[in-house]
């Protein structure tokens, strides 16, 4: 059953496109999506996911939503702390780089999230529409906690005002949060009119996007060799730990199987867009060769291909425990 689910995930068009991107890099092809297309697709994904989440939220009731939100907030603080501590145990990285890693693994990956939704749909497992709200919530605190942890290793103080402003007004947050509000206001009547674009084309667009992600991740692969065993172990093992935590929190706060799995995937995933941008500006002393290699070169492909079905298995196990 697990193998079957994993196979369905691995043979879906988006995941295969990701593999095609890896292959294109391996054979040294000049294939690359135009920068403007890549940016356009990511605007589409962020806004579309936001809108759909908002529409779902407009139909959910507050009671149902508040516990999961609180749980997610807690995860947003606990996961980066845990990551910081684990990295300290199994690598020799300094405080700054540990904090940078904590920021990345404390935040989330929109694409992994989207792939998880498509996977659940292909398995006919339902999930709460408002999980997008959880995505938006989990995006930010991890970065802040990570920066906070790193700043203890800095000779200088961090310019918190500017850093927070840059994170909160960054493109991805404005699109995601803006989309949520837009969807909340326009509701399902308004959404109907834009469904052909934001709904119907979603999996197709994600397929194109993952092609480019495969290329980007493939270019990172050579760095993995230099990364050191500790970092590789962390990038593969930590998602399982954090992901299981997410599933459990989801289950405890009242999410169904699907919702818990999504929260697990969110917790397992590492950011490679919002976090790197914030860390690069606020924490230039941290090495992109460490944090991008981990999040984009290892954790992202791992989650996409293995992490998602594993989280489902974990979800089913936890459900079986029946607390």
């Amino acid at each position, binding site marked *: 059953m697990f193998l079957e689910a994993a196979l369905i995930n691995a043979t879906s068009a988006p995941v295969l496109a990701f593999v095609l991107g890896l292959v294109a890099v391996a054979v040294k092809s000049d294939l690359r999506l135009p920068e403007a297309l890549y940016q356009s697709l990511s605007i589409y994904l962020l806004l579309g996911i936001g809108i759909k989440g908002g529409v779902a939220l407009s139909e959910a009731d507050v009671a149902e939503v508040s516990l999961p939100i609180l749980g997610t907030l807690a995860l947003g603080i606990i996961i980066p702390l845990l990551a910081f501590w684990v990295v300290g145990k199994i690598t020799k990285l300094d405080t700054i780089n540990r904090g940078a890693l904590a920021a990345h693994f404390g935040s989330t990956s929109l694409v992994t999230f989207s792939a998880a939704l498509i996977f659940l749909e292909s398995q006919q497992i339902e999930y709460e529409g408002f999980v997008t709200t959880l995505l938006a919530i989990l995006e930010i605190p991890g970065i802040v906690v990570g920066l906070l942890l790193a700043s203890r290793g800095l000779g200088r103080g961090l310019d918190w005002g500017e850093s927070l402003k840059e994170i909160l007004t960054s493109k991805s947050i404005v699109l995601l949060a803006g989309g949520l509000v837009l969807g909340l206001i326009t509701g399902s009547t308004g959404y109907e009119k834009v469904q052909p674009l934001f709904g119907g084309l979603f999996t197709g667009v994600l397929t194109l996007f993952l092609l480019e992600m495969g290329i980007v991740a493939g270019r*990172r692969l050579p760095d993995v060799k230099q990364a050191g065993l500790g970092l590789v172990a962390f990038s593969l093992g930590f998602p399982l730990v954090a992901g299981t935590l997410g599933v459990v929190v989801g289950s405890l706060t009242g999410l169904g199987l699907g919702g818990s799995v999504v929260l697990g995937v969110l917790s397992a995933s590492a950011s490679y867009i919002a976090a790197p941008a914030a860390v690069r500006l606020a924490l230039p002393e941290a090495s992109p060769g460490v944090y*991008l290699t981990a999040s984009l070169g290892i954790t992202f492909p791992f989650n996409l291909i293995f992490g998602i079905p594993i989280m489902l298995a974990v979800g089913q196990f936890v459900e079986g425990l029946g607390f």
Partner: protein
Amino acid sequence: MKFTTRKLVTIVGEAALESRLIRDVMALGAKGYTITDAHGTGPRNQRNGDLEGGNIKIEIVTDPETVDKIVEKLSTDYFPHYACSCWISDVEVLREDRY
């Protein structure tokens, strides 16, 4: 035609730095700048695999004093941490009070 001598400073750096670089350069007295999208490689890039994503090339025509201030700022705030190149040449301009 009355030509005046000025300096042209060319800075190539990570695109994420755009707004910071502009703010700093204008604060130091430049009266204008021109930016083009670019990509490239340098000695640092090859060493530690910096962020993917493009560079920007900023060109600033200005007087020698401002050049010195800009170069000073780059040396303290940018060169140590970021992928960033800079070179300077002589140019002639018309309408000297604009530069």
